[in-house]
């Protein structure tokens, strides 16, 4: 395990990702302190989602290093521990209910009970007793379910790609409140969004990405 500053949850050092001839990430460096919300903004194709995929261990960087809570991703561990991930549309089983889907996922590690899962579903305003298959869910409900899945095992790091996408105004407010509560509980959150208003309202720091580069930081005043 590499020496790391205990107040940093994520350290990204000179990470690049090439796919074919295209450079999707170009020497990106970033540090996210524990218990803070960092937001990434940028145009489509800027590399925001790819950066989250690399940090989450789903995608291997072509160069550079990602360290989460002192462990090098891809070397010490394959995926950051105790991390909830919501990237793109999660592939839930369409014929099962929300509760059944989460139970099946939870059974892989057996760390949470059915009651924990139900409580997480309530937390994102979904009813665990709703027996309808998720194929009947609206995109907003699927997004809530995706967030529930990311929260299910009580992570200390959350990586969320456009978490309020497809949500109505109330849904957005609910998720913002939830994320603020999680920050108060010490959870570190890195998210992407197209909405500058959302990021200003929510984040301790806002990063601007363009063409695979991390261009600038901003620290909104509370």
């Amino acid at each position, binding site marked *: 395990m590499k020496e790391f500053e205990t107040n940093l949850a994520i350290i990204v050092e000179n990470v690049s990702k090439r*796919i*074919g001839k*295209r450079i*999707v990430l170009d020497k990106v460096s970033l540090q996210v302190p524990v218990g803070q919300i960092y937001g990434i903004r940028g145009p*489509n*194709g800027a590399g925001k989602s790819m950066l989250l*995929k690399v940090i*989450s*261990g*789903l*995608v*291997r960087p072509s160069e550079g290093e990602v360290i989460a809570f002192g462990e090098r991703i891809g070397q010490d561990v*394959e*995926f950051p521990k105790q*991390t909830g*991930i919501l*990237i*793109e549309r*999660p*592939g*839930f089983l369409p014929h099962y209910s929300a509760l059944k889907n989460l139970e099946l*996922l939870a059974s*892989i*590690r057996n760390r949470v009970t059915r009651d924990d899962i139900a409580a997480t579903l309530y937390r994102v305003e979904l009813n665990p007793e709703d027996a309808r298959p998720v194929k009947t869910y609206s995109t907003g409900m699927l997004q809530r379910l995706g967030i529930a*899945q990311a929260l299910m095992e009580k992570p200390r790091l959350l990586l969320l790609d456009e978490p309020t996408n497809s949500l109505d105004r109330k849904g957005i407010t609910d998720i913002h409140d939830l994320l603020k509560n999680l920050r108060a509980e010490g959870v570190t959150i890195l998210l992407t969004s197209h909405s500058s208003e959302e990021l200003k309202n929510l984040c301790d720091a806002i990063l601007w990405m363009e063409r695979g580069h991390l261009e600038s930081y901003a620290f909104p005043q509370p």
Partner: protein
Amino acid sequence: MPHLLFFYLIGDMAEGELQYRGPLVIPLVGSRRLWWLGKITTLFILAIGYTVFGIVTTIIGAAIALPWAMDLSPFLRSGALWTVPDTMNVMALLAWFVSLISSTLFAISLLQITLSVWWRRAFYAFTSISALMLLSWLLGIDNPILVRWLPGSQSMLLRHTIFDSGVPNHSLAWSLGYNIVIVTVVFWTSIWHVHHVDIWNPTADIHLKEER
């Protein structure tokens, strides 16, 4: 043809999961290699199950229409089509049948799911493997010397020398060894590849698509 049905049924089991459920499932599993070993184990069980199911169904179907007997039929022993050794009984025949078919199914389908992950396209892998098997079966018809080298011939019990004296050096043990070599090579290659694979589908990424 039952082989091709099996390849079709298992075609998307690895690549499909990698694309759609991989980002959910694999971080929970904790390791790409562990996830892949799960796929290989499932494939092994499915290959045996599919073979046994096929044979049991055939036997039950035949037993409804034909009288049951534990002895090989006089027709098989007559040497009209094949030479059946005196030491071969029904149970030995069935055991070889299950071993050869299930090991061939497992070896070739392991190659198929590895190619599907390599190319990130399940359809390409299914098409390639189907073409390989069809070509292999067709090439074997008039080329007895080639038969033992063709992947499709390994599960063809009656194309082994013990039954067909026109096919040289194609023993039952050879076929098992052949399949084991394929499994070993593909297993280690796939383990290496899957360890480095990205868990998302680059070909489906709209921003990357625009660049191509």
